[in-house]
């Protein structure tokens, strides 16, 4: 599969090392393991290659455009006025961490007052919870084989850290807000969520851009890594919204580890970026865990959005339900690769996957690849993928009740996306996203 010696191959070291070289010198941590982690990642960056379409995992997603662009790192957080950030806030989320171009912005953040609950930047969290963090930071999102995770880990500095202690329920959602403010910058946001046994929480991971950053030529590059750990019986609702500007590059890796009888619900919405890639890797490490992965991609123009998910049923009695939808307009290109792995011994696994795609124009394009790999005998696994236009009978039915054809199409397109958005249990965010979908669909019809 690898074509490491091909002449056109971009050595990640050349490219990502350049990005690394521009990084401000990090002070060595007093924790040896953290220094080692960064060093290992730095070494990986210099040996790994940037993926090309010759890699099976990147077959449909050509990122050569990215490798032709140069980015620099911000040396420190740019000063962002509270008023510029405030319209991104989500009213239900009283606890909020804000990162500007990858740097923690304490003046915009509002940390948790709940006793025992950690919602803070990495360094204060390390001061008090290093032993809780050590077994997880950089241990789930493996970087030995992934140039982007390696680059992110090598530059590890600020990070959103959430630790919810045993049997504690965090009542209000926590908003992790990542704001990109400048073009030609690379940002490496990082999140670590640890849900201890029996705990419950909702976390919103939100990538946004200030309007001026993409109004001119040039784009920014976000390379993010998120790790989420659910210990036994923990329950995490994870909402991810990628609404960066239409010129941005967005590469994201999220690794989730599920303990016994834990419940992980994920809703991810991809609206922005010229090229985006979201790798979501969920591993069931103990019996009886349950995950629901829902996704919506809504793109137009020349956007490319790639969602790669992998659900690894490593233990018996696991349940995974997945619904991924794409609405593709203009000459945009969506990719969905949904892998479900049922390992030997993972008996009584119940895995359902559905991928439904709506093409709004003749030039819109979707590549979908469901991938089931089953090595256990007593399992229930289903998957299905559909690609289509709006149903003409539905359009006619609405017209026959007085709706203009454009209104009918708009309503149906909206409804298609709303099925996923409806699964977000936060009213104001749901409303915002519904409005975005309505505006986007209306502008394309």
């Amino acid at each position: 599969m690898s074509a490491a010696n091909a002449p056109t191959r971009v050595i990640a070291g050349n490219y990502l090392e350049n990005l690394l070289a521009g990084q401000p010198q990090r002070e060595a941590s007093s924790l040896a393991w953290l220094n080692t982690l960064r060093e290992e990642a730095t070494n990986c960056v210099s040996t790994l290659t940037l993926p090309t379409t010759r890699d099976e995992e990147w077959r449909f997603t050509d990122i050569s455009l990215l490798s032709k662009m140069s980015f620099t790192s911000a040396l420190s957080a740019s000063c962002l006025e509270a008023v510029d950030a405030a319209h991104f806030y989500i009213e239900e989320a009283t606890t909020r961490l804000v990162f500007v171009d990858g740097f923690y912005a304490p003046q915009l953040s509002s940390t948790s007052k709940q006793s025992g609950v950690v919602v803070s930047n990495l360094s204060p969290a390390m001061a008090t919870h290093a032993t809780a963090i050590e077994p997880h930071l950089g241990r789930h999102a493996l970087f030995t084989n992934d140039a982007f995770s390696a680059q992110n880990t090598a530059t590890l500095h600020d990070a959103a850290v959430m630790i919810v202690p045993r049997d504690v329920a965090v009542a209000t959602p926590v908003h992790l807000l990542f704001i990109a403010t400048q073009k030609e910058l690379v940002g490496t946001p990082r999140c670590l969520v640890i849900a201890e046994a029996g705990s419950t929480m909702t976390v919103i991971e939100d990538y946004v851009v200030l309007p001026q950053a993409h109004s001119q030529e040039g784009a920014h590059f976000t390379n993010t890594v998120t790790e989420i750990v659910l210990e036994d019986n923990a329950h995490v609702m994870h909402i991810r919204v990628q609404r960066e500007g239409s010129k941005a590059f967005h590469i994201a890796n999220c690794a989730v580890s599920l303990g016994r009888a834990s419940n992980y619900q994920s809703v991810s919405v991809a609206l922005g970026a010229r090229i985006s890639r979201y790798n979501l890797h969920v591993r069931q490490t103990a019996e009886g865990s349950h995950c629901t992965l829902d996704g919506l991609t809504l793109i137009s123009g020349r956007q490319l959005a790639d969602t790669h998910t992998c659900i690894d049923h490593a233990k018996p009695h696991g349940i995974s339900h997945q619904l991924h939808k794409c609405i593709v307009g203009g000459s945009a290109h969506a990719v969905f690769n949904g892998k479900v792995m049922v390992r030997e011994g993972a008996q009584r696994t119940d895995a359902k996957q559905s991928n439904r795609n709506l093409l709004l124009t003749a030039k819109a394009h979707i590549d979908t690849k469901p991938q089931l790999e089953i090595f256990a005998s007593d399992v229930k696994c289903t998957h299905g993928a559909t690609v289509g236009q709006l149903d003409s009978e539905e359009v006619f039915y609405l017209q026959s009740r007085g709706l203009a054809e454009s209104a009918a199409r708009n309503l149906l397109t909206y409804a298609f996306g709303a099925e996923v958005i409806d699964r977000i249990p936060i009213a104001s965010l749901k409303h915002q996203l519904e409005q975005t979908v309505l505006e986007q669909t209306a502008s394309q019809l």
Partner: protein
Amino acid sequence: MIYPDSKVLLEVRGLCATVNGIDILKNLDFTVRSGEVHAIMGQNGSGKSTFAKVLAGHPAYEVTSGSVLFEGQDLLALKPEERARAGFFLAFQYPIEVSGVGNGQFLRLSYNTVQKQRGMEELDPLEFDDFVREKMKLLEMSPDFLDRSVNEGFSGGEKKRNEILQMALLEPRLAILDETDSGLDIDALRIVAHGVNQLTTKDNAMVMVTHYQRLLNYIVPDYVHVMDAGRIIKTGGKALALELETRGYDWVSTEYKATASVTA
């Protein structure tokens, strides 16, 4: 009911239509006056549902010749939504499930679109909610149906009631009920028929397309038409439906052919 000097609502002359190049309607004539209740009966494939869909403006059917005047207006020149706004309504044989669109939201959008056309007041969600709940009582429908997606997961009978609910909201001048009785048990049939009867006035008209005379026990037609091979071959009163029930359709077409050959 037949009223003297009532005005013509629908006038179909020499209508021919094809689907995928196949002739379905062949020189069909049909007239409806306000206040009247018509039944169009006929065997499968006789063109009844095609006729209903052509009138509603379904894009799969092509009108090759003939004319349709609806209250003096050229119906065929109108888009489907313009026909609906002008007061034409088709209750679908198979109401479409529209996943993700709330039934209440859909009903309000539809209602307001038509109200706007008529220069009448549009209703906000709260006002509409009260209004639609009243109408639902007529059809013994639970308000729960407002919160569900349009027709999604509705039983056959629930879908048909939802169609009649739309008719009750839109108050059309002319409604075509395409096999509204199919898939209804006797109780649902009674409820739906009661709803339809409540909506009948001397200013509007109903056309029921049906296979069976059963529905006609509940909604009594002024005229019964027999359709065969894309045209109406016999018209009679309510008694014709009973005769068809006992004798079937073959004798009608035999009689029609005999008359046609004599005329020729």
